[in-house]
């Protein structure tokens, strides 16, 4: 177990983007808050009857949680990008710089190595994302309460336990769900990374695109395309059936806000977990990882 932790530490030493990128995002957010250029959606507006203060307390809380969820979404997308490139590089970078034989000269099994890299992509990065989302939320709470105070309203609402915990719960559930949902993609990217003679990005991206195009041209159908898009964007179902990322941007209008307040974030999670798609994906991730281990172990580096 101790060795596994060292393997993970090694990954974090090598891929510094894992902690630098969220710091940069948080830094930008803090900067925007300080310079007052950030638009906090319904929270920031005090004019007219759509202002945050005009809503009943219960509604305010719900809106806060939704705003935090939106924030978590941004962090998640950033981490998704990091995870994508990390996975693609994970079993290729040491082959590119030819240090793979050095790593293989240590008494570590290839299965351990592959698993440690998978754990970074699927556990460490989401955990960092979660911490980032919570930090961002606290930043917003601080910035939001300063705004409310400036407009002469009570800032207490920002620090209501329900709002804070609600935001944290959403961040946690989403990170965890995203990890399970995208595990097969991570597995696929790692397999491409282990296998690609060079340029793993093309090796990973071209086959699905080629299958999609070929299917369209030959059979005129889009099963492959739908399958890929379903996996890539399937997570948006988490935003509930009535809402969607697009609706969040229209939240300033009165109807948007009332629509938003109907979002059932926890209910959609339940539905998500009961769908076979999620669990079939986890199974596929296991198979893809086993394949990546096999390629890593038996690939002849000099031929």
């Amino acid at each position, binding site marked *: 177990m*101790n*060795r596994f932790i*060292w*393997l993970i*530490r*090694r990954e974090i*030493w*090598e891929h510094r983007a894992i902690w630098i990128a969220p710091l940069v995002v948080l830094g930008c957010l803090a900067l925007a808050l300080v310079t007052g250029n950030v638009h906090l959606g319904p929270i920031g507006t005090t004019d007219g009857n759509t202002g945050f203060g005009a809503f009943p307390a219960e509604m305010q809380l719900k809106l806060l949680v939704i705003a935090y969820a939106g924030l978590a979404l941004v962090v998640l997308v950033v981490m998704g990008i990091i995870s994508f490139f990390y996975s693609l590089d994970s079993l290729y970078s*040491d082959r590119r*710089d*030819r*240090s793979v*034989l*050095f*790593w*293989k*000269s*240590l*008494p*570590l*099994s*290839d299965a351990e190595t592959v698993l440690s890299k998978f754990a970074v992509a699927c556990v460490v990065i989401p955990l960092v994302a979660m911490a980032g989302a919570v930090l961002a939320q606290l930043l917003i709470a601080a910035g939001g309460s300063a705004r409310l105070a400036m407009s002469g309203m009570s800032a207490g609402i920002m620090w209501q336990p329900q709002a804070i915990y609600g935001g944290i719960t959403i961040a946690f559930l989403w990170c965890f769900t995203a990890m399970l949902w995208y595990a097969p993609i991570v597995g696929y990217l790692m397999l491409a990374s282990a296998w690609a003679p060079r340029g793993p990005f093309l090796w990973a991206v071209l086959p699905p695109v080629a299958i999609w195009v070929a299917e369209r041209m030959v059979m005129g159908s889009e099963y492959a395309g739908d399958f890929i898009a379903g996996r890539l964007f399937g997570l948006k179902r988490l935003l509930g059936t009535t809402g969607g990322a697009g609706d969040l941007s229209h939240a300033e209008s009165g109807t948007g806000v009332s629509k938003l307040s109907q979002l059932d974030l926890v209910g959609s999670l339940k539905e998500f977990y009961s769908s076979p798609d999620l669990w079939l994906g986890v199974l596929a991730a296991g198979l893809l990882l086993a394949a990546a281990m096999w390629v890593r172990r*038996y690939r*002849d*580096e*000099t*031929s």
Partner: protein
Amino acid sequence: MSDLIVARGLGKTFGTTRALNDVSFHVGQGRIVGLIGPNGAGKTTALKALLGLTRFDGELSVLGLDPYRQRHQLMQDVCFIADVAVLPRWIRVRQLIDFVGATHPKFRREVCEQFLSRSDIKSGSRVRELSKGMVTQLHLALVMAIDAKLLVLDEPTLGLDILMRKQFYETLLNEYFDEQRTILVTTHQVEEVEHILTDLLFIDRGRIVLDAAMDEVQEKYAQVAVRPEHVAAARTHKPLAERQGLGRTHMLFRDANRGELERLGEVGVPSVADLFVATIQGARA
């Protein structure tokens, strides 16, 4: 003396070329074996088979294990340097030592640090900031701190200047090697390793063409600087090779009578390089 490596009928084919063809040899404990051959002779393939990095036909046992199936176990007691310049470039020296220390049960940190204290390598530097010579020193310090039974070196001094090469082998012989350890080394620069080797394995076109201990070589082979008037007489003893020198013809003999050779000219021990050239040419003729 037990055999650390036993190879019987080792074979490996890449497409239509036989990289290894019915290779059999064994290596005992406490030996320093030079695996020497021209480019493309199959040296690296043989080493990779020994290290479990490539599939092979035939029988092979290293420390009693099947290297291909039990590679992970094997690496507990085997250390190898495939090429000195391949340490990961992004890592810091301190991180590298921490990592090897945490993952290798036979790593002795104090030994490694002692080696490094004699160099200019700083523990905070990244490998990419080090000169090639320093990377080699670092790699060697790591490897020598591992209490391994078998050390495999594949062209360890490639790209190093002559001072570094000399230092490399001196450190290896004086501070690392003992009767408990075995070293297998491949190199092109035979003249630099010949004084440390105990055994020779010549390989050419996937076959072992010479397998002998150094003392055996000194007994069996003789290099004679033949005086001009004896050249014709010397040729009747069927020299393996002949080379013109300053006023003398150097001939390499195998299993020839010492007394007779001494009448032809000055008798000496052939260099590994001369022996190598003669053996390879003989094998190909």
